[in-house]
């Protein structure tokens, strides 16, 4: 007993000591001033999913400009079809022996499985996230932040924003009160409205569809709690057949009888907008707001949420081990956590409209508080009641579930 206590004390002291000795903010940098000095004049190559031009122009306008003006860093945003492409690039570079600082990617917008692939292979730079000055605004004590799909973040990625799954309907076609509020009600809704519902094909491009299916697991098994933590094969095998049975029972009443499924959220919005189906999915706290103003859904579209089991998650920035401009990457990862810029990403008028990456209660300066308040007041009537969303919020689960669900859905529902 005593020995154990001694050991722990020793460990804590030595940890503290080692921190003092090296005093690193991130590997290779002793102070934030070092980072700033090294970053000057660098070009930061940011690899991110480029499918939303609202997000693209937000990054260019809100990060590109201050990076140039305040830090003399040039932003090179590289739009990719999926994060997987960036992961592949890092893997291919490793395979081709391009290590040290000779890679091509400085930052990847990442979470979940892609993060785990790179972290596990030791292809990430860090830990750096807790060393960023603005890390003080991040709610690191919240499992939804420090676990990414059930895996420890351990400072190898730094948060950007958050999102929560819920639904879109068209108020010109349906009433808010008539929309289903759990999967049981959804089943009835589907059989009463044949051909009017579909969901996104689970897969690399359609993680929203995978999420839709994970939530069925939570509801059928009676709750989300047992799914937290490492992958549990017994649990999965117990409930999976029941989920496939439910999905197959829907099939005849789905859009096109389940012969095809939309490949991503954009496809699903298109079906919804043209009146081919009556619901779509959204991840934005503003509900149907962003798509209404970009013109991809009808102006009468609104949001609704189930009362339980709506998965929310954080997304992050990670730096590959062979990033050529690590200092500039650190500056960028820090910049996006600035409270004013965080408020700007939630502010509907700016078009990005993702959720918070920081804990808003941790912000103490007046300017930041005012900006945050203003953003929250502007979410608009295309959004679901924030209270309902908050009550329904559950965290995402271990990344293995995603792989399993995607492969098994393919075999048990699509190929059936």
């Amino acid at each position, binding site marked *: 007993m005593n020995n154990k206590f001694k050991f722990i004390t020793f460990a804590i002291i030595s940890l503290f000591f080692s921190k003092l000795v090296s005093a690193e903010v991130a590997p290779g940098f002793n102070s934030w001033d070092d980072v700033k000095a090294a970053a000057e004049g660098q070009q930061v190559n940011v690899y991110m999913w*480029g499918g*939303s031009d609202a997000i693209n122009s937000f990054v260019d306008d809100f990060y590109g400009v201050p990076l140039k003006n305040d830090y003399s860093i040039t932003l090179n945003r590289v739009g*990719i079809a999926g994060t997987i492409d960036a992961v592949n690039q890092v893997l291919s570079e490793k395979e081709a022996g*391009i290590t040290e600082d000779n890679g091509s990617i400085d930052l990847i917008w990442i979470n979940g499985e892609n993060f785990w692939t790179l972290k596990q292979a030791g292809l990430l730079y860090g830990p750096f996230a807790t060393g960023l000055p603005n890390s003080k605004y991040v709610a690191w004590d919240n499992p939804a932040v420090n676990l990414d799909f059930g895996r420890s973040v351990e400072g190898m990625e730094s948060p950007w924003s958050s999102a929560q799954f819920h639904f879109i309907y068209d108020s010109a076609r349906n009433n808010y009160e008539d929309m289903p509020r759990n999967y049981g009600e959804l089943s009835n809704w589907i059989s009463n409205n044949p051909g009017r519902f579909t969901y996104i094909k689970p897969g690399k491009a359609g993680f929203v569809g995978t999420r839709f299916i994970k939530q069925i697991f939570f509801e059928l098994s009676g709750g989300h709690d047992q799914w937290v933590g490492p992958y549990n094969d017994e649990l999965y095998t117990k409930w999976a057949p029941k989920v496939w049975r439910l999905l197959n029972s829907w099939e005849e009443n789905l859009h096109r009888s389940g012969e095809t499924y939309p490949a*991503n959220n954009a496809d699903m919005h298109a079906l919804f907008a043209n009146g081919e189906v009556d619901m779509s999915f959204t991840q934005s706290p503003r509900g149907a707001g962003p798509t209404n103003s970009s013109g991809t859904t009808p102006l009468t579209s609104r949001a609704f949420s189930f009362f339980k089991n709506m998965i929310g998650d954080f997304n992050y920035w990670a730096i590959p081990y062979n990033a050529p401009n690590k200092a500039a990457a650190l500056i960028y990862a820090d910049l996006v956590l600035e409270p004013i810029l965080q408020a700007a990403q939630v502010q509907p008028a700016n078009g990005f409209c993702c959720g918070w990456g920081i804990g808003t209660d941790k912000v103490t300066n007046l300017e930041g508080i005012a900006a945050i308040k203003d953003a929250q007041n502007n979410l608009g009537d295309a959004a679901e009641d924030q209270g309902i969303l908050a009550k329904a919020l559950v965290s995402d689960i271990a990344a293995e579930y995603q792989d399993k669900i995607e492969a098994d859905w393919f075999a048990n529902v699509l190929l059936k």
Partner: protein
Amino acid sequence: MNTNLKKINIYAIYLGAFILILPLIAFFINAFSFRWFYPQLVPKELSLQAWVRLKLIPKIDNRSFDNFLELWLSNPTIIKALLNSLTIGLIVTIASIIIALPAARVLGLLNFRFKKIIIFIMISPTILPPIAFVLGLNINFISLGLSGSFFGVCLVHLVPIMPYVVLTMTGIFANYNPDFEHQARTLGANKFKTFYLITLPAIAPGMVVAALFAFLVSWSQYLLTFLIGAGKIMTLPLLVFSTASSGNPALTAALSIVFIFPTILILFFASKFVTGDSSAKYGLGKL
């Protein structure tokens, strides 16, 4: 009877032309409409929003010439992609002609052993699909540092282009009489003068066809650029492809118009050259 048949033929032509032009109509309506959903046949809201979002036209309140210039010079993705496509296309076209010229001359004018085998090797990329070689090439290019480089992309574009350029120009040289060159040389013209005054005018029409074809193939190349460019070399087809899956038809349509407009223009002015019989025509099926 015969006039009836003729009438049917003419209607068939009109129908064919209509079907051919229908997608183009759809592109133009989509590109200038906003919230154009089923069942509207004519859009209720006309808008330039897609062009504004592509950063080709400034926002509504400041559309002066200076604002246009400023916007374009701020180097938005679409301008970057347009310039990349254009530069790669021109480099590849010029390079393929220069490389193919001597080979085509030899193949067209001389007979030698292994000629058939050499031609067979030369045309093999026209039959086997690009996916068969580019996946294997990808790793090699990464380790050579050619992946993600401008040069690497140009190099790989040469593969589908080379066979057609060589074949087309071989065809020209097969009907070409080199005796004129000898005469010019005996009359005292030097090598360059001979080429410039005798050879070039004779092969120019065919060369235009080959060049045109080379440029079009490079311009519309997606798979090779995507894999060898490694996301760093953005060209128009890559932009069109990724936008097509982002669910905004107006944006996709506007981009597609930017993508096809230059080629339509080129072919419109060059169509009189293409009508001759040449091997390059067989490449047009693969654009």
